[in-house]
């Protein structure tokens, strides 16, 4: 049987869409198979940061991979806008993490020094309250200061997803939503993805199904350990612009609403809300920007992030079934450029390069051997 598609991407979230965009752009006829409207989609709960300053402090390959993506993000943004006219909201004005007290400030400095030791391009600046307040009108006089890095940025994750989908389609890609894949069968040089909407054949299959990846990976001889990590986000009404740069926990969108986020909790597959955590997030936000106290939260979100055992992304190709790949990560916005512009080339070549070896799964086996 001849495969109908050069590649099938399972998962239409940010990771899958970026990969599919890249594959189609490289000339491969590509099909996205996606779950329905209420999929556990991390993309929708995403914060929108294209963030460098906290990534891979203890793991230089991740730091470098993040940097590579951040440095090519502008090209991705331009490509999408050329193809579709959609502005994905990408801006790179630098970004900051606020430290409310001296202890946080010292700890942040320590971490950034470590990051710089293996990633000298991260030319961060530790700023005291006064210098930080010049960047951030409204910053509370009571915070200690924070870390600014000019290489950080942000984008609108929802526009990014829409932009990827729309450009993918206008390049000839096919999206089949409401078609969750429940089984994959490999026959020699092709794969069959089975869904309730029928079977689809492809020469390659790329699993980017977030939390669903593990299950599907087993069917093609891969072990991709992922678990959910609940993140919650508070969104205020639209406000006049006051934040020129994104912060690690607060960001003002182009539309004007302020997003407050970044909680980590292990809640299994529960996407409900947890009031104590929202309360803590609110306390911190008002601590940093007292004027936000008087604004209204119009929405709260919770979504499941995709966590790997060490928190770093996984890129893998099946040894048993070459042509079957998997990609999972929790920073789908930051890494979107790498996924759209780099990874597709590797998939087409049929080998993951040595630079990505530290992000493959045998790193977990090594750890196991250690233990």
């Amino acid at each position: 049987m001849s495969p109908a598609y050069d590649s099938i991407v399972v998962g239409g979230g940010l990771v899958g869409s970026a990969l599919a965009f890249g594959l189609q752009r490289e000339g491969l006829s590509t099909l996205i198979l996606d779950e329905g409207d209420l999929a556990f989609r991390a993309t929708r709960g995403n914060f929108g940061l294209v963030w460098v300053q906290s990534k891979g402090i203890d793991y230089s390959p991740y730091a470098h991979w993040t940097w590579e993506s951040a440095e090519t993000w502008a090209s991705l943004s331009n490509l999408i806008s050329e193809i579709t006219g959609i502005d994905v909201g990408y801006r790179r004005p630098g970004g900051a993490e606020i430290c409310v007290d001296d202890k946080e400030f010292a700890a942040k400095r320590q971490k950034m020094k470590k990051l710089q030791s293996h990633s000298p391009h991260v030319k961060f600046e530790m700023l005291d309250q006064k210098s930080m307040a010049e960047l951030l009108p409204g910053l509370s006089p009571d915070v200690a200061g924070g870390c600014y890095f000019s290489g950080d940025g942000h984008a609108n994750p929802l526009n990014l997803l829409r932009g990827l989908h729309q450009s993918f389609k206008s390049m000839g890609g096919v999206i089949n939503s409401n078609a969750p894949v429940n089984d994959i069968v490999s026959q020699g040089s092709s794969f069959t993805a089975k869904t309730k909407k029928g079977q689809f054949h492809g020469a390659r299959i790329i699993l980017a199904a977030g939390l669903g990846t593990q299950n599907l990976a087993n069917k093609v001889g891969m072990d991709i350990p992922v678990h959910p990590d609940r993140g919650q986000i508070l969104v205020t009404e639209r406000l006049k612009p006051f934040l020129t740069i994104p912060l690690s926990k607060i960001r003002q969108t182009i539309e004007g609403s302020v997003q407050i986020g970044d909680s980590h909790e292990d809640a299994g597959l529960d996407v409900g809300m947890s009031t104590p955590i929202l309360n803590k997030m609110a306390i911190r936000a008002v601590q940093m920007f007292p004027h936000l106290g008087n604004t209204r939260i119009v929405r709260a979100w919770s979504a499941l992030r995709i966590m790997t055992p060490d928190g770093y992304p996984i890129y893998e190709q099946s040894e048993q079934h070459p042509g079957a790949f998997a990609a999972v990560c929790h920073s789908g916005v930051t890494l979107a450029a790498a996924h759209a512009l780099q990874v597709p080339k590797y998939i087409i070549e049929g080998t993951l390069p040595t630079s990505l070896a530290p992000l493959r799964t045998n790193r977990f086996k090594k750890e196991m051997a250690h233990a």
Partner: protein
Amino acid sequence: MHEIEMKPSPKVSIEFDGQTLQANKGETVAAALLRQTHLAFRTTPVTGKSRGPFCMMGVCFDCLVEIDGAPNRQACMTYVEDGMRVKRQLGAGDTGVFLSDEEDTQ
């Protein structure tokens, strides 16, 4: 506007965009403004179009005004108080901290 005969009610005065007007104690800001045939209460943050109250029961959020400096208050759910300062809500909420247009690099 056509007023129906009501039991007499104590009056309060409120300010709307700098202009003083009389209102009945116990009525909403929206009712007080509509009594003076002010139909447009705000402009939208998206396209700057004029809007006014639509549902009068707190569900549509089209009656937003600034009250005593606080942005985006529902006029149909807020009750008049003597000396209240009400302003049209022009576009997005103003918290007192914002950038001038030139500074807006977003």
